[in-house]
């Protein structure tokens, strides 16, 4: 056995990956298959699953109804499609905002003196020490009608003698967007920083030496060479935003229902695991499709090896 481990390369490989492999099979692959099976079943009155093979849940997701209020035999109820497109556009906006905020910051850190970079990276990671949910609650404190922001503005308005009606910020799309960007920004900063930091200074010098002004150098060197980081960051932000329900639950209230909330509700409130499973799988498929086309266009974040 030991001798085999010493000499057999493929056996070494198998030993090295087996813990993760077993873990993934037991806790990812099998549950996923179960989800698939359940999604074809139907809900029993007591909330358990009647196994079967019907596409009812998927048809319901698509919004096509056979029982309609206006008496027609076929009609479209776009509620789930709306939830999906809302999730997609929120994930898209979050990603774009995160790129716009993360890029300059990552650039700044990558260009800072080497001994300061670690301090900056450390500062970016500090908020992660606090629990995810607590950080979302902090935003509620800030955004509430009687929250910190409104109080401060109200106090300032009072100083100059103006009447101030507090802003309704909490439980809006904007609040959810702010929360999402806040939660996921570090996941955009770090990969962009990594790819920017790898660009050799001499490449910038060579570009300037060959006659490129700073903006041209940015467009032709910095940007293309940092694309792998942007791609990696986009995947790290877009995918979780599509599925998260905590942020929209707390900052969006009942108003802003995302796919994540829909799934959560199906399992915990409506007690319909079959429809919840179908929605989960659809979310996964959609995320995979978006990621697939995105990475086909921009690569998989693989590094351009500096010769």
């Amino acid at each position, binding site marked *: 056995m030991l001798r085999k481990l010493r000499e057999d390369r493929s056996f070494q490989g198998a030993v090295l990956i087996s813990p993760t492999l077993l873990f993934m099979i037991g806790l990812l692959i099998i549950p996923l298959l179960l989800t698939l099976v359940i999604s074809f079943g139907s809900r029993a009155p007591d909330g358990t699953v009647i196994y079967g093979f019907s596409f009812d849940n998927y048809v319901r997701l698509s919004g096509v109804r056979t029982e309609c209020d206006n008496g027609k035999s076929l009609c479209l109820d776009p509620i789930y499609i709306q939830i999906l497109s809302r999730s997609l556009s929120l994930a898209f906006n979050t990603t774009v905002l995160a790129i716009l905020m993360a890029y300059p910051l990552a650039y700044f850190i990558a260009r800072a003196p080497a*001994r300061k970079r670690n301090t900056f990276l450390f500062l970016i990671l500090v908020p992660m020490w606090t629990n995810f949910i607590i950080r979302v609650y902090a935003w509620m404190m800030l955004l509430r009608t009687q929250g910190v922001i409104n109080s401060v503005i109200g106090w300032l308005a009072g100083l100059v003698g103006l009447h101030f009606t507090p802003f309704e910020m909490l439980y809006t799309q904007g609040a959810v967007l702010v929360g999402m960007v806040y939660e996921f920004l570090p996941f955009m900063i770090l990969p962009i920083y990594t790819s920017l930091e790898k660009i*050799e200074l*001499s*490449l910038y*010098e*060579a*570009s*300037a*030496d*060959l*006659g*490129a*002004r700073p903006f*041209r150098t940015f467009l*032709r*060197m910095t940007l*293309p*060479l940092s694309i792998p980081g942007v791609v990696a960051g986009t995947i790290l932000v877009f995918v979780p935003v599509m599925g998260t329900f905590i942020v929209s639950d707390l900052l969006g209230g009942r108003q802003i229902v995302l796919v994540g909330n829909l799934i959560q509700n199906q399992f915990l409130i409506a007690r319909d695991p079959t429809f919840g499973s179908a929605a989960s799988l659809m979310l996964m498929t959609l995320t995979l499709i978006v990621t697939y086309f995105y990475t086909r266009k921009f690569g998989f974040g693989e590094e*351009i*090896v*500096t*010769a």
Partner: protein
Amino acid sequence: MNEFCVELRDVVKRFPTPEGSEVFAVDHVTMQIKNGEFFSMLGPSGCGKTTSLRMVAGFEWPTVGEVYIEGEAMGRRPPYLRPVNTVFQSYALFPHMSVAENVAYGLEMEKTPKYEIKRRVGEILEMVKLSGMERRKPRQLSGGQQQRVALARALVKHPKVLLLDEPLGALDLKLRKEMQLELKALQQEVGITFVYVTHDQEEALTMSDRIAVMDHGRVLQIGAPVEIYERPNSRFVADFIGETNFLSGEARAIEEDRVTVYIPSLKDELVGAKAAPVNVGDQVVVSMRPEKIRLASDRALPQNCFSGIVLNTAYIGSDTRVIVDLGGAPLAVWEQNKISTLDPEAYYAPGEQVWVVVLPENALVLQDV
């Protein structure tokens, strides 16, 4: 046209250190580089040669003093507005662009028309023998090929001056020797002024029209290779360029360009050539190149002839390198093997008693600093 292509006038560059003090990277350097010249800056690492080059390129600005290109003061002009191009030590090829795109980059920045770019890129790649490699990415090229791309990329812009920062440093010895000759030939072909930074004295001697030897941010000597090697003006230059033996002593008498030096370790006097300003009574060193010292079996001359014992020999084909114990210190002597023989008697052997003979013109008397 200005006589000097590049001129550094009393240039100082100080860098702040993390501890809050300052270091002199370049300390009052003045150099005048002529049009069409192959000029080398030579010195050990940290001597200020690369910083000087970077100030010509515009990556650094002088703390004090001024850099002139074609008679024009550069001040704080950025690199993209200077008529010079650089070949970087690391090549700094753009990894996401093909060979042709790398070479075309500088021309695109000048808004050269597309057909013209195509023609000039083709021409220059042919010149550096890279035709057919246009579509390769830098990482698919060997070190020597990458080096040629870097060269082509800089030369295609027809700069007034080409700056080369140890461009052959990363190549293996054989390729480096080949590239030295090629670079020199290329420079003569294009007629562009080359300013070349290296720490390799042999490289500098092989290629340069003139060499500036630098140490600790200062220029110690500027001259043609033969001047630098045969008439070094200081102990450092004599030591850094080629190999040499030093004997310390005291100047006893000076007669025109001959200096009589008392060498305590030999308890004898040695007559040498005055290669730097020295006065009677000064502590001096005598520099003697190993190939310029002769060994003899008996006392050949009345003066400059010293008895020693062979410590060690190494036969290296063209020469036999002999180490002689001379007054308690080792002295290197290279005896050229001018006669082809297998007879061991023809070669020196350890333990042999010999006479070391050095002609006054081969013993350079320098200040001991």
